[in-house]
């Protein structure tokens, strides 16, 4: 009889806390009267805060036969994931109530997806990584489709699900090939194997397939085509959450797999990742130029940001790894913030997701407009915001550690950032300069998506009193500004990751 390995429950306490919260939320929802659902929100956030406190205080360690690793990367990645969960929950309730779709499941799904993201940051084994990836993905598919009355939401969920499972299959096949070549799925074992001899074709193909699987989740070009449709169809709060949490999870995993585990073989994969990064930055930013829909704009923006993050992974120096985590922290704030702005708005009972809808908003909601301007300036990477400091960290690391290729990537990065200014600043421009015109008569041609069920969006954009969204806006704006002016603490926190590489 084989004795089961001991379960070091304390090691995974943060994940357990989040999952337990999810269960409690699911069960409590059955007994709770609808008007008291605020308790679910409060309870979820409480559980997340508890998990974050646990995560920061727990010491390093490994468990489950080295499959689970708790180190600096785990700590930073999980803290970011937890922040994304908390923001993802707080941004939702008022919107869900307005569209009559609030159920406890929504929060539970966010929590479960978040737990998957936390596990991805901690996976020391490809199989655990796969399980974590699925734990993250499946709730996200459901969240994308969670607006049951809307065809677009259904379409988004289905599209995401089909393409996502396809990508998962790639990922799994990659694991199989690597296992066939090396006889192990543990990252440490793989590193030993790959370092020992000339890499076999199977192993190389396996690594390539892993990149495809992760690249899909992070929406790297050319695996990005799902992103605009899914973001456009998914409800705003769900899109906000998925854009941020998936990025945190995937890039934590990429940092663990590539610089951290396969660092000695950097020569073999930096070119591949570097090319992907270059293509992603260029395509993401150029495609965003033509968008008239706010969600699609943010979708392409999220693709572009995945490109900048990948520059950091491809550079593979300690500074670059720290810069990636710093960037993720800033992105979590500005990405969620940019979505949260639109969550508070509504047009004729529908989402207000056309940029032209925001015309003249500065008149009626000066603070909201100012926050939007801040997020857009930060997303464009202009000083004095966190977006600038984050990009600076990545490009500095690329120029320093990336040789000639790093210099090229940095140049592409700064030039595409210039391009991005055009589409980002259009949003605050419309808010400040545009006149709130009369409702567009018919449904209008929305870019690419299926027009939503009701006769056609009409009426001027209305602003809803949403204290929780306002809290999210306040928190994210504060982080963006803090990262712009006094980024020391967050950078120091992220540097634990670089320290692992030294």
């Amino acid at each position, binding site marked *: 009889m084989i004795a089961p390995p001991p379960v070091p429950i304390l090691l995974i306490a943060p994940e357990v806390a989040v999952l337990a919260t999810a269960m409690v939320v699911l069960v409590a929802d059955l007994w709770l009267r609808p008007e008291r659902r605020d308790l679910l929100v409060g309870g979820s956030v409480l559980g997340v805060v508890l998990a974050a406190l646990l995560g920061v205080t727990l010491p390093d360690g490994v468990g489950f036969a080295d499959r689970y690793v708790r180190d600096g990367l785990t700590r930073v990645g999980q803290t970011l994931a937890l922040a994304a969960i908390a923001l993802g929950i707080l941004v939702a309730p008022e919107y869900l109530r307005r569209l009559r779709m609030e159920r406890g499941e929504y929060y539970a799904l966010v929590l479960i997806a978040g737990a998957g993201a936390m596990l991805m940051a901690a996976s020391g084994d490809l199989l655990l990584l796969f399980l974590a990836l699925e734990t993250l993905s499946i709730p996200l598919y459901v969240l994308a489709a969670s607006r049951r009355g809307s065809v677009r939401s259904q379409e988004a969920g289905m599209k995401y699900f089909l393409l996502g499972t396809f990508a998962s299959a790639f990922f799994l096949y990659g694991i199989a090939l690597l296992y066939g070549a090396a006889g192990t799925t543990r990252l440490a074992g793989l590193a030993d194997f790959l370092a020992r001899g000339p890499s076999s074709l199977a192993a190389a193909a396996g690594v390539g397939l892993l990149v495809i699987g992760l690249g899909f989740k992070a929406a790297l070009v050319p695996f990005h085509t799902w992103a605009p449709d899914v973001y456009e169809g998914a409800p705003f709060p769900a899109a906000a959450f998925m854009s941020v949490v998936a990025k945190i999870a995937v890039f934590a995993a990429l940092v663990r797999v590539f610089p951290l585990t396969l660092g000695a073989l950097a020569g073999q994969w930096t070119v591949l990742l570097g090319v992907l990064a270059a293509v992603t930055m260029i395509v993401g930013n150029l495609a965003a130029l033509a968008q008239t829909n706010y969600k699609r704009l943010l979708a392409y923006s999220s693709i572009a940001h995945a490109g900048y993050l990948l520059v950091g992974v491809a550079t593979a120096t300690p500074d670059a790894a*720290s810069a990636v985590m710093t960037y993720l922290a800033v992105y979590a704030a500005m990405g969620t913030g940019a979505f949260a702005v639109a969550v508070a708005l509504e047009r004729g009972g529908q989402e207000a997701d056309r940029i032209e809808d925001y015309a003249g908003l*500065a008149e009626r909601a*000066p603070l909201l407009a*100012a926050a939007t301007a801040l997020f857009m*300036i930060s997303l464009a990477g*202009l*000083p*004095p915001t966190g977006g*600038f*400091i984050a990009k*600076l*960290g990545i*490009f*500095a690391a690329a*120029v*320093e550690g990336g040789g000639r290729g790093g*210099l090229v990537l*940095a*140049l592409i990065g*700064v*030039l595409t*950032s*210039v391009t991005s*200014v*055009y589409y980002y*600043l259009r949003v605050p*421009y419309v808010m*400040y*300069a545009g006149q709130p015109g009369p409702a567009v008569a018919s449904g209008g041609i929305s870019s690419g998506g299926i027009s939503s069920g009701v006769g056609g969006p009409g009426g001027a954009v209305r602003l809803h009193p949403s204290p929780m969204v306002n809290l999210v806006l306040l928190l994210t704006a504060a982080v963006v500004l803090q990262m712009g002016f006094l*980024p*020391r603490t967050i*950078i*120091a926190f992220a*540097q634990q990751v670089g320290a692992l590489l030294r």
Partner: protein
Amino acid sequence: MLSVLIALPLAGALLVALIPREREETIRRVGLAVSLGALVVAAWLFRAFDPASGEMQFAVRVPWIPALGIGYAVGVDGISLLLVGLTAVIFPLALLGSWGSITEQVKWFTVAMLSLEGAVFGTFLALDLILFYVFWEAVLIPMAFLIALWGGPARRYAAIKFFLYTMAASVVMLVAILALHVLGRRLLGERTFDLEVLATMVLPPGVQAWLFAAFALAFAVKVPVWPLHTWLPDAHTEAPTAGSVILAALLLKMGTYGFVRFGPMLFPEALPASAPLLAALAIVGILYGAVVSWAQTDLKRLIAFSSVSHLGFVMLGIASLTEQGLQGSLIQMVNHGISTGALFLIVGVLYDRTHSRQIADYGGVAALMPRFAVIFTIVMLSSVALPGTNGFVGEFLILLGAFQTSTWWAVLGVGGVILSAVYLLWAYQQVMHGPQAARHPERLVEVTRREVLVFAPLVALIFLIGVYPKPLLDRSEAAVQAVLNRLDRPAMAEPLRRPR
């Protein structure tokens, strides 16, 4: 003290943002008061500055982002002092000058102007390359919004062109800054973006040439050096009066300042090597700008192209790399700020009354607005560089410096002086004299007391600098000497170089 100069306008912007937007009068007064406060600080700085020293004064250095080696480092020397003073003078006047013309969204206008002032001060005072870059880029945002929200009919196009054009060039500078940082880490073994520390490196000429090219591109677009000037006529023409004034008087100076500040310190071999090219482009700019100005039918466009011509003189002085040339350039930067700022304000006065910028829509204005005619005459003569006005001092010194380096440069430059007299006098004659051609002569009422208040300090400065430029020259002399010393003996810093 320098930090106060940067922080005061920014804090003022924050304060104004908190005032309810209906209270426009309060907002205007607070904005003016804050910019006057900055003027007081700058005046104190001007007096407390030690002219004998060519070093950075009032320097402050604190770590900002130690993980990346970025520091908050500010300091002032004879080069930046003059521009800081100019900034402090121009902003209150621009705010006062737009008292009547900006009536929509006064609050955000004032916020944009004050944050712009803080960022411009920061650009001239920063001694850390990243800090400099932060301010340099931060200037773009309020300026683009000034053009895009309060500008003329084609404002959107102009704002986007201005933003993308200048930013595209500056991000290349950012990569060069990062490369300098990396070289600094290798050669000095230190993680730093501090200008004075990085200046101790001795870089091989090939590396210097590339990095200088990247910096020069960013600066040349800002100046603008011909043929990179095409954003300027659009931006100047479409911007509201205050925007044009700030753009011409201060933002263009950021480019020429960049050449003087960073060229000699970081690239002591590449700068002299490229001086003939810079001079050639400057001369083309002088002549081209002047000829094109002459052909304009729009007053604002005429002045915009005249800026290309006048900034060509500044670049010529820098490229001469002589004491007179550099001093002349510094003085001429201030002069151009005063006289072109005033010219844009003059067009603003006319535009506020008739809502036309076309030269053909005016004529015989002098008879209707005699006091205004006096102001226009003085400013125009200063721009033409008549002896006794400030323009003469600057252009004379520049030509003197250029003559020492190459007779031809000076000869061609003089051609530009003559041409500038031609187009400015021509424009003046068309607008102020001749038959009454205004479509609404009844609207051309005499300048108000507030408008006189705006022009009075500028006119005073025109004569003051024209007759007695010594206070400015004294303060810039030591710094200019330090620049030239660096160019003569770049190897001075040799011992700091370490083997890898």
